């Protein structure tokens, strides 16, 4: 069994290379008994590389991704592969995908990518696909079945008939709070593919599904939402051990629905408010979730972060490494049958910065 990655070892590696100590990536580690091998993979998400003009890009977002890549390359033991959770670009432009892709090209190990809406709605994922392959796919690695979904598609009417130009379509979907947007979905065609794909897999095989949007309904107004979430969940429920890991929300979230554990990953670009802090609308942030600390606006990388995830017996324990905040550990507790924060779950021990309003 390989040595567990610790914050200290990462800091030591970072210090040795003269880089900063904690960086916004997600380190994911699978560890379970039986004959399967332990392994780990790295998770980076939501970089939103944004072109200003020509060769000029928003420095703030660039730095988040650069540091994530640097940190991922320093981690020992090396991860088996790297996941990128979507929204590499801000407006789906070739220049943005190339600029972000150039940064990702420095990563050691194989890269698997998830489609985000910011990558998609300019050319419907055509250029992204040239760089990273099919929009949805599955693969097996050391006894675990992985599925990558494109969860950010929407109706044909909105996609093909609503907007005069592709640029406007992209801008309308890029605004998180834009009422002209449209709910995300996996869609009938992809659900049929998923059913077919999962039919070939033993229900005892640990299953890990990556999507960009949450495969659960949290707040429709910001598309913290997948419209056919229940239908996708129904395809996953027969598996004994299922984890869904998603980006898009730029914040710590976790939940349990039936057999399915949910974990969100942090963004490298910027944090988002919890939707229940928007005074004009209700939201359904999972009641399980103890929020991350409120972001300090004076620290541009605050409330971005990275995490390690152990999967013991196929269940996820997420170790959120947060800027200048104590580590957060959220893991599946067999006693309760759901993920719990190892330290802050009880209301009485929560800290003032975890209170969002």
């Amino acid at each position, binding site marked *: 069994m390989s040595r567990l990655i610790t914050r200290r070892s990462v800091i030591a590696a970072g210090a040795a290379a003269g880089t900063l100590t904690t960086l916004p990536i997600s380190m994911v580690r699978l560890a379970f008994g039986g004959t399967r091998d332990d392994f780990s993979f790295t998770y980076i998400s939501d970089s*939103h590389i944004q072109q200003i003009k020509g060769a000029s890009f*928003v420095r703030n977002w660039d730095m988040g991704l650069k540091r994530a890549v640097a940190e991922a390359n320093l981690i020992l033991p090396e991860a088996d592969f790297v996941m990128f959770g979507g929204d590499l670009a801000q407006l789906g432009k070739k220049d943005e995908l190339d600029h972000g892709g150039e940064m990702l090209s420095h990563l050691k190990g194989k890269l698997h990518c998830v489609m985000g809406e910011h990558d998609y709605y300019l050319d419907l994922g055509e250029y992204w696909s040239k760089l990273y392959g099919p929009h949805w796919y599955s693969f097996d690695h050391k006894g675990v079945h992985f599925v990558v979904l494109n969860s950010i598609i929407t109706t044909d009417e909105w996609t093909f008939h609503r907007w005069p130009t592709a640029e406007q379509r992209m801008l309308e979907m890029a605004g998180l709070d834009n009422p002209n947007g449209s709910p995300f979905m996996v869609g009938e065609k992809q659900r049929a593919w998923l059913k077919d794909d999962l039919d070939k897999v033993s229900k005892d095989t640990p299953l890990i599904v990556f999507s960009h949007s949450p495969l659960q309904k949290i707040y429709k*107004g910001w598309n913290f939402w997948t419209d056919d979430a229940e239908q996708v969940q129904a395809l996953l429920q027969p598996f004994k051990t299922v984890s869904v890991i998603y980006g898009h929300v730029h914040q710590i979230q976790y939940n349990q629905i039936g057999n399915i554990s949910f974990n969100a990953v942090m963004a490298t670009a910027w944090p988002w408010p919890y939707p229940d802090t928007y*005074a004009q609308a209700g939201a359904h942030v999972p009641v399980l979730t103890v929020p991350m600390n*409120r*972001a300090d606006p004076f620290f541009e990388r605050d409330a971005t972060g990275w995490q390690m995830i152990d999967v013991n017996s196929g269940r996820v324990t997420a170790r959120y490494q947060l800027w200048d905040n104590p580590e957060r550990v959220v893991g599946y507790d067999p006693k309760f049958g759901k993920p719990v924060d190892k330290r802050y779950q009880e209301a009485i021990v929560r800290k003032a910065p975890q209170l969002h309003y």
Partner: protein
Amino acid sequence: MRRYAIALVLGAVLLSPATLADEFTAADVDRWQGEFDSVAKKGRELWTSGAVGTNGVACAQCHPNAANTHPETYPKFQKQLGKVAQLFEMVNWCIRNPLQGTALPADDPKMTAFVAYINKERKGVPIDAGKH
């Protein structure tokens, strides 16, 4: 005598219905609300615009529906500024830093529009100046 005459004139002015400060109609209220709404609407346009700063970043990228701005808590002590600050100072902080732009005067119509929009999205939340 002259003082008496002035008092009479003042009395006449104060009693004139056209100048009584607390006399207004539903139409007046509608008009005033419309004025506010149009400024808040301008604020929303600025909020989602990439042209406020110099790098194309919009306020709404980090603050959808102006969430996490907490206008009801200002003025309040900002530890990073080392003083009690007003909301417009924090708006300017964001314009200067994430948006890489130039700060606006406190009474700039654009700043008024920002503050109007922020407060409109926060409508109904009790004032709690100084809260952290």
